């Protein structure tokens, strides 16, 4: 099939940020996640848990609580005292509002979605009214002594439970007075000198308050009488997160030691009508503190300081064995953070606060297959470009020749011209029509820059040594304003395709400067897209692992694509949990397509027959000379290599060199904050 020499790159210090809070919107089936660096990610659970949107963070923003209102409004509140509403079409904050109560610790929306309550550092609970286009301060409830760390509305909207230090208060919303004061005990004698922080409260509709505190207890209180119903000692460390399911029959609590505990409302005796909260399951999928948990209809979603999002299915709720019934861990973002300039062998790494440009090293020795060759020329870091301003970088790209670098934040786009011989770098001004970009792409001959901007418009900028001119603006025919997340340009400079968040793929003709056609919409979001350099066929992979090939010139799906849909690739291809993030082609063998996701990369040869779902799967890691394994392998179109993982990027350079950017998980784990001390027997 192909023999390659591999550049195995491990010097990309990609460090994801820990998860702070999350909110699940059951109407839209979407999860909004906020991380410690201020970025917000939205996952579409019905679309194979694909990371649909990413709103980059900012240095000045801190997020402590996140909340959905309706289907499409997202609010966060943080320690800088500000409430931010986000524009989910333009992927940036719409406006920020200062609550004037000091740092905001928690936010909660009532069940009718008319009012917001914020718990502040100065001990006051502030009520804001939700208007169609903004929120407005209404009034303060009675101010208390300690800081308010958690809030929960009762279903009726008349009472609010607020957790503070050592105490839980129940407020009557109409009068604003505290009607009940519940003292939380400090737990076992060893921790009695530190006050007990009630990290979470939840108000159930039968007037039971569930609280999780820093002594590791989950307690159930009666809100009418102010008495304790039951205590469950869950861990020796804090219970940092708590979530109640929608029909109030299950509570999930996340602790500092990485365990997630589930309580269910069950009757202790079969046939008995009385139900109690019973601790049922314990999951240990995390190594560090679990700071956010939520429950969907069929799964428990948890995230914490170990930066992984874990979606664990509840087997009693899952009906069909489908993609829902698999444990998923989202480790890396579902888009590529590495750009490659093939001719000068340069790699551009995107960090939230800077860009790094590296030149690959090399070796002079030739070896046998399976051997690792010594590195004679070390890889060198050519450039470290720090961003300007507070906002994090959301996209970046480098041209094929390696002379142009562009990156964008929510507030600005910058274009740089590189001269590699004397390492000179100069900044070029871009025309005023551009403010921020969702995706950037250089054309194959590095003469044009395509900027996918807000409202799904694509600007074409022509580049030259002295200045940049705005040439044209493309608008999608359907008039949709969903943000564009993928751009692909053909090698001959004639075609440009864009994919947006409404699963629409538009093809534009660059020579005639007009819209050419639109690919038939497939319900799943496209995760990677590329145009074949010779045949000009567009190859698209989607979030549900389906792959299509569309002939641009003929405006219809190719025969190979129809054959693929009929016969299908091997079934193990469909089991992959992570989406494909990059597609590339082999210039030496035009029928080969190389794709990769987080755990493997594969080569599909379009000229070989497809085996279909039922055949046995043979995979070759190293070529063997024996003839028995040769025959079945040769006829299979799909070859998978999972030797290098976890992968961030795979690309083909000239002369059969393959560059593989890995990020070993242990490198990420070694830079995480301190975990709790756990004594294990026998160590």
């Amino acid at each position, binding site marked *: 099939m192909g023999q390659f020499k591999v550049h195995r790159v491990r010097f990309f210090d990609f460090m994801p940020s820990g998860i702070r809070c999350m909110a699940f919107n059951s109407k839209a089936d979407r999860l909004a996640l906020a991380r410690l660096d201020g970025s917000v990610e939205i996952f579409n659970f019905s679309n194979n848990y694909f990371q649909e949107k990413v709103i980059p963070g900012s240095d000045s923003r801190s997020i402590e609580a996140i909340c959905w209102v309706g289907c499409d409004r997202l609010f966060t509140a943080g320690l800088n005292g500000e409430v931010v509403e986000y524009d989910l079409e333009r992927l940036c904050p719409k406006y920020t509002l200062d609550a004037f109560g000091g740092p905001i610790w928690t936010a909660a929306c009532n069940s009718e979605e008319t009012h917001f309550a914020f718990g502040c*550092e100065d001990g006051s609970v502030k009520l804001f009214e939700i208007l169609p286009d903004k929120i407005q301060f209404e009034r303060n409830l009675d101010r208390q002594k300690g800081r308010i760390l958690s809030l929960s509305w009762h279903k009726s909207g008349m009472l609010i439970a607020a957790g503070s230090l050592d105490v839980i208060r129940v407020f009557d919303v109409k009068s604003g007075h505290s009607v009940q004061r519940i003292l939380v005990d400090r737990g076992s004698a060893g921790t009695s000198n530190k006050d007990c922080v009630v990290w979470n409260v939840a108000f159930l509709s039968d007037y039971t308050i569930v609280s999780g505190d820093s002594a590791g207890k989950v307690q159930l209180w009666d809100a009418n009488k102010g008495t304790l119903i039951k205590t469950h000692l869950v861990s020796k460390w804090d219970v940092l997160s708590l979530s109640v399911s929608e029909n109030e029959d299950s509570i999930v609590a996340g602790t500092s030691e990485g365990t997630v505990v589930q309580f269910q409302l069950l009757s202790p005796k079969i046939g008995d009508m009385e139900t109690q909260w019973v601790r049922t399951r314990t999951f240990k999928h995390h190594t560090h503190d679990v700071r956010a948990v939520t429950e969907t209809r069929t799964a428990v979603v948890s995230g914490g300081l170990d930066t992984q999002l874990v979606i664990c299915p509840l087997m009693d709720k899952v009906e069909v064995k489908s993609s829902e019934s698999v444990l998923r861990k989202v480790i890396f973002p579902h888009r590529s953070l590495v750009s490659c300039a093939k001719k000068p062998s340069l790699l551009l790494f995107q960090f939230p606060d800077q860009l790094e440009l590296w030149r690959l090293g090399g070796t002079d020795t030739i070896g046998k297959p399976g051997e690792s060759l010594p590195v004679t020329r070390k890889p060198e870091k050519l450039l470290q470009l720090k961003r300007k301003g507070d906002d994090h970088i959301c996209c970046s790209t480098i041209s094929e020749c390696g002379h142009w670098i562009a990156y964008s934040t929510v507030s600005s786009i910058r274009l740089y011209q590189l001269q590699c011989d004397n390492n000179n770098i100069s900044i070029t001004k871009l025309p005023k029509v551009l403010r921020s970009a969702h995706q950037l792409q250089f054309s194959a001959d590095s003469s044009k820059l395509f900027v996918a901007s807000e409202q799904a418009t694509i600007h074409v900028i022509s580049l030259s040594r002295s200045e940049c001119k705005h040439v044209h603006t493309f608008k999608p025919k359907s008039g949709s304003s969903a943000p564009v997340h993928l751009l692909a340009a053909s090698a001959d400079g004639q075609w440009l395709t864009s994919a947006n968040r409404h699963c629409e793929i538009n093809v534009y003709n660059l020579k005639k400067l007009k819209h050419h056609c639109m690919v038939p919409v497939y319900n799943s979001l496209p995760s990677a897209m590329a145009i074949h350099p010779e045949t000009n066929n567009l190859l698209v992979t989607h979030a549900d692992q389906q792959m299509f090939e569309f002939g641009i010139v003929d405006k219809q799906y190719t025969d190979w694509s129809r054959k693929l849909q009929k016969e299908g690739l091997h079934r193990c291809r469909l089991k992959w949990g992570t989406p494909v993030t990059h597609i590339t082609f082999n210039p030496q063998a035009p029928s080969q397509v190389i794709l990769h996701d987080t755990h493997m990369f594969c080569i599909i040869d379009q000229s070989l027959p497809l085996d279909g779902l039922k055949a046995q799967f043979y995979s070759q890691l190293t070529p063997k000379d024996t003839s028995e394994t040769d025959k079945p392998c040769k006829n299979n179109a799909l070859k998978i290599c999972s030797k290098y993982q976890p992968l961030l990027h795979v690309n083909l350079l000239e002369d059969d060199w393959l560059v593989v950017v890995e990020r070993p998980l242990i490198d990420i784990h070694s830079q995480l904050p301190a975990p709790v001390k756990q004594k*294990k027997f026998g160590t």
Partner: protein
Amino acid sequence: MATKRRGGFGARRKRNMEVKAVVDLGADSSDDDLPEEVTFEKAKADAVRSMRNALETVKRDKELLKEKRRKRQELFQQQKKRKLLSEDMLEEIESAYTKKGKPLDSEEQEKEESEEDEDSEEEVVNARLKESYKAVRLKDQIDANTRQESASDFIRSRLYGPGTNRTTTNQMLSLKNKTGNNKTAAVQFVNKNWGSENKGKAEKLKKRWVHSQTVVAN
């Protein structure tokens, strides 16, 4: 209340006169002598005088206070005037606002790379202040920052402060190693960036030891 007089002089005073008079008889007069004779007019004059004095002092005090207040108000006004920009600067800015910003754009292009892209209007105001200076109200900023810092300190101390029983990542990884199926080398030997300070110290110690050995040998 009128004070009582010593001796049996009797109170032949007109009761409807409300006079606050305190008459000091003098401590050095002996008890046996008759008290001095004080005429009514004299007493009345004394009382009136003292009352007038009291009123005058009160008036004077009030006036003094008024003066102080007025002076302080003037001082504040002067300080405020000084704080605001001078009149001519304001006029200049206003006139520059009405002009178009084109001549300033070319100026901007010649400036260095470190210049931020700003609107032409902002450019005018910033041209007054030097490059890369921004006017902020210190009082607001410091207050908000200290509160945010105290909040993040609170959460840091609750999660990572004393008494939270935390361990290092090294411990956790070595525990994983010991309990895992494949027992591999510790992370500090596998990962070259790990524990760089300790490795640096070890290198220095080795050099020093080798040096000391060579010195001893020579």
